[in-house]
């Protein structure tokens, strides 16, 4: 027996939740490898950023900086599945949080998708912990999926988030970035 569930064009019987709100969104320009969300209000418990990324060239990587801080204040650990094996690595005292563990990198036709959670981002007494779930598959032996955790060693509330590509390449115009706030 099969079950078919139809959905109305209006979105069906929506059960809206007011605890997950869209703050801002952006798309790639084709001429820049930087996306910045600024003036983020301190009115939520945590932030979530959802990215669907296509790059102007392959094999580069995405990293995260907070409050435009470029000091050696970031650390991360990564667990990735790269097809042939599960691999882990980490980096301390970095100038950003690498989101994808430096394995196969971005592609121009196959989206790399990423969910970034920044917990307790508005705290003025705690360092900030970041959780990342990301992946990219291109119907070959060079896909990857994994998890990353990072810490930004600052007690300043986060008001700016920057997502950069390495190698001087750009986000294509099909790339999308959305910042959400989650209330406690």
């Amino acid at each position, binding site marked *: *027996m*099969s*079950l*078919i*569930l*139809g*959905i*109305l*064009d*209006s*979105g*069906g*019987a*929506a*059960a*809206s*939740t*007011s605890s*997950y*709100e*869209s*703050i801002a*969104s952006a798309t790639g320009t084709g001429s820049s490898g930087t996306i910045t969300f600024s003036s983020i209000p301190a009115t939520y418990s945590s932030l979530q950023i*959802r990215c*669907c990324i*296509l790059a102007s060239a392959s094999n580069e990587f995405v990293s995260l900086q907070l409050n435009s801080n470029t000091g050696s204040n970031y650390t991360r650990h990564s*667990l*990735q*599945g*790269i*097809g*042939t*094996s*599960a*691999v882990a690595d980490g980096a301390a005292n970095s100038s950003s949080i690498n989101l994808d563990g430096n394995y196969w990198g971005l592609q121009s*036709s*196959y*989206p*790399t*998708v990423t*969910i970034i959670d920044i917990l307790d981002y508005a705290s003025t007494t705690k360092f900030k912990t970041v959780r990342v*779930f*990301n*992946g*990219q*598959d*291109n*119907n*070959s*032996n060079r*896909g*990857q*999926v*994994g*998890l990353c955790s990072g810490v930004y060693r600052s007690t300043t509330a986060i008001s700016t988030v920057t997502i950069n590509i390495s190698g001087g390449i750009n986000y294509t115009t*099909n790339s*999308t970035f*959305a910042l*959400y*706030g989650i209330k406690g």
Partner: protein
Amino acid sequence: MATTYDKIATTTLASAAATITFSSIAATYTDLRLVLIGTSTAGGGVRLQFNSDTATNYSNTQLYGFPASAYSGQETNKTYCDLSVFGFEVTNPCFISTDIFSYAGSTYKTLLAEYSGDQNGSGGVARIVNLWRSTSAITSMQLSLSAGNYKIGTTATLYGIKAA
């Protein structure tokens, strides 16, 4: 601020079913999230197809752990997305959450799936990225199993997430 996380549709099975289909999905949202929790009659793997496409347009990369080691695998030119790696278990409920990004856009579609299925000595945990090589907007999706049926009480819910 606008509310952006909506339940589009949900179903809890009143009788066993081989498939669960969501159709006429509006292009209203930025991303979709599909959440499945339940059991099956034969422990088959969970599969997902879009827009009734049964061709070899799907592929995936997996990261999974059981019982004491981590592994990775890849599948190319498949006829479905793999959402589980492991089976959808017979006794203890499995939980699967799948994020489908830019589902209404004109690029290929990439999904992130989380599988949790512990069986008190077996089972496992997995993270899977799936690719559907189509530039069409997703308007329908069908869950199926590699074997057996979804049991009574299995629940599937589709959410829409809308950016500003």
